[in-house]
């Protein structure tokens, strides 16, 4: 069919079809894409989409008209006997003025809407819940710094929990390369840049509460190239009911039981898990209090908080589903399952001494002195999954 059109020399119709295609794709987007800007479920994302669609239609009309004009001119004014020597028109001042002013007017209208929305989105909503988002290579850390006047901080990774309808104020930062935090269904993206603090407003639709829990999960992804595993640096957001959120928040403040800590200690002694991962209850000295007051010391931030791993649905930059099998494989040989070593070498304490092994999330099957067996990996994975609090 396309071929036939081509032979009639009317290529531009193809584009008109494609333009309609984009609209169709937008329209029938009621699929299951949880990462689409076409299916907003938050105020900011909806505003972004509305202003986009408004001017998309203006642009589409202009685009189609110009393309049709090109095709029309090419056919209508084709050289044929009698018109070889057309009238020589050198220009037309009124026309020039017209097609300077008209676009300028359209752009002015666009500018007015744009500018008001820029300022609208930049403001910090009153009484917002505050969460700090740190981009890591290649996962996300969330610190809940202000929740209903609570001062105790919750530190978690890769899965953001927010209550529906409540304004959220995200503070974005990085202690390494640039990242960009983006959950399309909830809000537009902004970069995490070392030395800078950026902010995003986020308000999930209250309507979402009518949906079952499984329909309140949204996907996102790092949008700024951040090195080897950039594509694996994903993120999930769960929109909670008030009760769900309160329960979840409270659960994240709890420690492992002393039995659990004792059991894990024997693995920790060999594999030094806690030199990069925070485990509430296992950490020495005053660390737990420090973490909850927001002064988390650097080393325990190298890897995600493992205390409540079992409460999450995914791991490794939200790339893998949290199943016993996946987790076992990861612990046994993380490097075989990721594009590169997770984590960055400079933060690994033994990097300078032993460049081969201690790089980010190591392959514990090759751990010096004590090579991990698959059975052992499975035991650790099972143990971690057992520490479910909710």
């Amino acid at each position: 069919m396309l071929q036939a059109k081509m032979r009639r020399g009317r290529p531009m119709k193809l584009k008109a079809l494609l333009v309609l295609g984009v609209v169709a794709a937008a329209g029938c987007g009621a699929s299951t894409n949880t990462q689409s800007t076409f299916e907003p479920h938050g105020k900011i994302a909806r505003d972004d989409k509305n202003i986009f669609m408004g001017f998309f239609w203006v642009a589409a009309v202009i685009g189609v008209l110009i393309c049709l004009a090109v095709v029309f001119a090419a056919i209508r004014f084709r050289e044929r006997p009698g018109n070889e020597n057309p009238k020589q028109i050198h220009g037309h001042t009124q026309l020039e003025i017209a097609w300077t002013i008209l676009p300028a007017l359209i752009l002015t209208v666009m500018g007015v809407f744009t500018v008001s929305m820029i300022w609208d989105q930049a403001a910090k909503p009153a009484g917002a819940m505050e969460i700090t988002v740190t981009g890591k290579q290649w996962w996300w850390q969330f610190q809940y710094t202000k929740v209903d006047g609570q001062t105790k901080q919750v530190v978690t990774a890769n899965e953001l929990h927010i209550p529906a309808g409540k304004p959220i104020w995200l503070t974005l930062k990085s202690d390494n390369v640039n990242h960009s935090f983006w959950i399309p269904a909830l809000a537009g993206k902004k970069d995490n840049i070392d030395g800078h603090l950026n902010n995003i407003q986020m308000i999930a639709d209250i309507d979402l509460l009518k949906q079952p829990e499984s329909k309140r999960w949204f996907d996102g992804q790092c949008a700024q190239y951040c090195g080897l595993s950039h594509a694996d640096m994903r993120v999930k957001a769960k929109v909670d009911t008030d009760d769900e959120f309160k329960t979840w928040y409270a659960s994240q403040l709890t420690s492992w039981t002393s039995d659990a800590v004792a059991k894990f200690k024997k693995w920790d002694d060999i594999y030094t898990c806690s030199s990069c991962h925070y485990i509430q209850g296992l950490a020495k000295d005053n660390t737990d209090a420090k973490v909850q007051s927001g002064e988390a010391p650097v080393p325990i931030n190298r890897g995600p908080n493992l205390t409540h791993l079992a409460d999450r649905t995914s791991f490794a930059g939200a790339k893998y589903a949290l199943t016993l099998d996946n987790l076992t494989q990861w612990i046994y040989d993380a490097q075989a399952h990721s594009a590169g070593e997770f984590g960055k070498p400079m933060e690994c304490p033994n990097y300078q001494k032993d460049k081969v092994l201690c790089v980010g999330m190591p392959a514990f099957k090759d751990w010096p002195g004590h090579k991990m067996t698959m059975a052992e990996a499975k035991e650790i994975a099972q143990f971690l999954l057992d520490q479910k609090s909710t």
Partner: protein
Amino acid sequence: MTTVEHSAVIAQPRPLLARPTKTSGWTSWFTTIDHKKIGIMYGATALIFLVAGGIEALLIRLQLWRPNGTILTAATYNQLFTMHGTTMVFLVGMPLAVAFGNFLVPLMIGARDVAFPRINMLGYWVFLFGGIFLYSSFLFGSAPNGGWFGYTPLTSTPLAHGFLPSRGPDFWAVGLIMLGIGSVTSGVNFIVTILNMRAPGMTLLRMPVFVWMTFIIAMLTLFALPPVTAALIQVYMDRNFGTNFFNAAQGGDPLLYQHLFWLFGHPEVYILILPGMGIVSETLPVFSRKPLFGARVVVMSGIAIGFVGWGVWVHHMYATGLGPATTTGFGIATMAIAVPTGVKIFNWLGTVWGGAVRLTTSMLFSLGFIAMFTLGGLSGVMHSIVPSNAQQHDTYFVVAHFHYVLFGGLVFAIFSGFYYWWPKAFGHFLSEKMGKINFWLLFIGFNLTFFPMHIVGLQGMPRRTYTYGAGHGWELLNQMETVGAFIIALSVLVFFVNVIASRIRNDVAPADPWDGRTLEWSIPSPVPAYNFLEIPEVHEFDDFWHKKYTEDEEGRLVRLPSGGSDAGQHEVSDGSHIHLPSPSYWPMVFALGLPISGYGFVFKNWLLVGVGVAVLMFGLTAWLIEPDTAHEDH
């Protein structure tokens, strides 16, 4: 030669080697300082790099054929997308502009050569060696992998810290500094040539629009490259000497890099697209047999774009959190630049409107340019809507946008230029039949590849990702894109077959095959070394056209009986009395010093740096003391 000049030659220092004299045969290409040959070399080399960049694109598309693809590793993928971008911008786009500029500017302004033929030659060799230097990084397993934009601190953090596990960013930074040197030299050369060497009577406003656009890109090159050169030096120093320009822990600011880079990067976009605008401003009037509608307005809007282009760089940085005041200002500037761009599009349409349109291959590409560039321009305007930009930034929507501008725009215009000026450069036509296959395949393949990217981007697919998960509904669109990419490859292949077949067939072209309007059509095809037997005198815009045609009272075209369409063929002289400077070896030697030093800098081998500088100084000295002309001439 007069005796005075002869004695002047003798007064020159003794050269290291006699200046080469051969101006034909394959070896002459290494020493030529003829702007036409250098232009052709720029074009040919850029096309080879186009193939390299194209192969990288095909591999990228194969990897993205399906979710969780395994054809490439993440490490390789990151190298490929970095090199694809770097290649297409620095080794294809800019050199093609220089290729056309080199070949055409002296012909269009009625000059015998550019102002500095040997510096022109230097620019080419720096480009070639710089390109080879960049690609040689693959041999060291150190292909650049920080993106063509090379954001810090990813690229600037020392190797030992392992953000990027290779010397890729060093190759990238050093290579681009090198290519920048070449670009600045050609920029200076164009500016001087255009300002100083116009034929008598060719005032600035009588210059062809293509020459105007070349002038504007030369100015942009001159002012845009220094900031990025500074930024690249800072990246290199940070990586290798522990400076803290972009190290936030020691007070540096990674955003400084982004400002310096985009202060270059946005004018760079116009450096890439303005030659395309110049080309279609030449072809559309010829194939419509009407003057360029509002020629002065087209020139003025080009200048306006050149100026406003300096005030929009932050629209690449909306996501970096510069605050609402800054984004507002740059958002409005970005909207403003759409106005002169729109004016150009309408004027091109006005040129075709009411004309006698000949749908040659060149014209098809030019018409395709208007349509595709318009679409790219419109999606560009949408980026100025800062809030929705937060959803589009760094997604495939942006990839779609700039490919519509730079592929739909620049590449279509470049092909239009190839088909249009091929007879002038080589004396024979390219096959129109194959040309039309070339066009339609490219048109279909291009739209099939890049249109779906708009959609997949808005559906949430970020750029620069070596893989994507299943379940977001991106699979079908990605497959369309991959098929489209191979159709584009097929189209380019048809072009190359056309080039070879047409050369064999040798459909000889007259001096003025298209009934052209500008001076280059007044001289024989292919153009003799001296260009013009006599420097022409110019009386108006489109001077050559007005020698052939006049207008009756109603403004209709009337052919003058004594029209000079075959001017240049009358000439009896073979031009041997015209003295041209001899070819030279030394600019190439000079250029060779740069990559040698470059390897030294990458591998921190200061001896090698010294050797490179020595070669460079040797080339320079020999260059400076060589005489104007080979002694054999006398």
